[in-house]
């Protein structure tokens, strides 16, 4: 029954309150940094573009009073698992792979292209883990949900429902404890009737059927609550237009500098990446 205490374990991210200037910035600025660093980490061609965001994020973490070891901590138990990824690439070849063979073992061979794929995957993943970790350790859930409207404000002018999406996100956050509580009581009620989630015997179909009495009531209860909330909001003539907000984020000093710096850094990493990675890849014959 230890696993049934859902309520206590619901938390997203890992907020660290150090009260640094970075923490005090508006969520929109933090979102901008998140996107500016994630974009090269995701879409870069080479190692420079994948690893420079990591370096920048670690520097930003120091400025935010978040220890880099705290951000890297989550990676430690996972590092051996990258081996699994490498072994999978080693065992299964890519169709049409003509790059240099690094070494052979029986019928399997490791090629330069496979090595490149694994290293890039590791570099991108480590970077993103640290970047997202930095964002969640400097931004509370509430800030993240409210701030998304400010961040998407430029898109709202083009007709994107930024306010609606932010409201949906805040609604979701408010509903989490309720849904978690309902899941808990339903699982307990089913367990009391002898239901077995997880470790039971029987085929996958039997288990899926056992899942129905958990899934359906939770969904229906959530929809009922949504219905009630929507009715309450409509009764109060909520339209979403011209809303004032309870929480207003004030621009800190130097915030525009931080925003421009994020854009500049993003562009610089992409430029550097394309300048460095193409000759390097040609040298390795990775794309040959």
């Amino acid at each position: 029954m230890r696993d049934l205490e859902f309520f206590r374990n619901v938390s997203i991210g890992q907020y660290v309150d150090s009260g640094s200037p970075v923490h005090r910035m508006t969520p929109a600025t933090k979102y901008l940094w998140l996107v500016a660093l994630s974009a090269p980490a995701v879409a870069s061609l080479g190692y420079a573009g994948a690893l420079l965001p990591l370096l920048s994020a670690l520097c930003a973490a120091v400025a935010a009073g978040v220890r880099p070891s705290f951000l890297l901590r989550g990676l430690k138990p996972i590092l051996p698992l990258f081996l699994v990824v490498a072994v999978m690439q080693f065992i299964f070849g890519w169709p049409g792979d003509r790059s240099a063979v690094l070494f052979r073992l029986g019928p399997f061979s490791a090629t330069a292209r496979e090595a490149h794929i694994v290293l890039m995957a590791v570099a991108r993943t480590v970077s993103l883990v640290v970047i997202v970790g930095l964002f969640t350790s400097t931004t509370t859930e509430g800030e993240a949900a409210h701030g998304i409207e400010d961040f998407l404000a430029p898109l709202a002018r083009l007709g994107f429902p930024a306010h609606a999406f932010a409201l949906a996100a805040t609604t979701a956050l408010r509903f989490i404890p309720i849904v978690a509580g309902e899941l808990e009581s339903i699982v307990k009620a089913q367990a009391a009737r002898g239901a077995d989630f997880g470790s039971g015997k029987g085929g996958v179909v039997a288990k899926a059927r056992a899942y129905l009495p958990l899934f359906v009531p939770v969904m229906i209860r959530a929809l009922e609550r949504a219905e009630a909330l929507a009715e309450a909001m409509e009764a109060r003539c909520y339209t979403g237009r011209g809303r004032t907000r309870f929480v207003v984020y004030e621009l800190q000093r130097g915030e525009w500098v931080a925003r421009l710096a994020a854009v500049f850094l993003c562009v610089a990493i992409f430029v550097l990446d394309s300048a460095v990675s193409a000759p390097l890849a040609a040298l390795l014959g990775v794309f040959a």
Partner: protein
Amino acid sequence: MASSSPVRKIVVAGALGAVSIALVLLNLGFITWFAGASITVLHVPVIIGAVLEGPVVGMAVGAIFGLTALVKAATAPQGPIDLFFVNPLISVLPRILLGLVAWAFFRVFMGRMRGLAATVAGVAGSVTHSILVLGALVLFGAIPLAVAASVFVANGIIEAVVAGVLTLAVVAAWKGIESRTGKARLADEG
């Protein structure tokens, strides 16, 4: 089934998003199979959102689900493949598209047989989800093509069937659709 007020759409997106987040964070969205393999039903709230309230709600729930998976992958990963979900092109984009595709399938089959349409949306949405996520994983070098194909055959098909059943069950209960066993019981309560 569409044409509800904007406020209702927003709130339903939030409520289904909350179910999604709770299932992700509490690790409840998995049905274990043999040998540690498990199939996921985490994407079903996205499909249900798309079926009940249209493509925008589906995509919003998909975005909330994807972002939660991303944050979880970065802060509390559970396995080697989990880790790759920190990449928004793997964790977020396929889930947003899932909302759109599930709604499109529902729309095509929505006529007199809403039950059938909901099932089709569940199955097709689930297949889309598997293809997009596995495709993105291959693209970013997390798993080789051969592994992705075998996972799709082994898991994707059963996931699709389960998603179809769950979507039908929830939509039928919520909308009071006549089913084989008579009217769904929960329909009278709402």
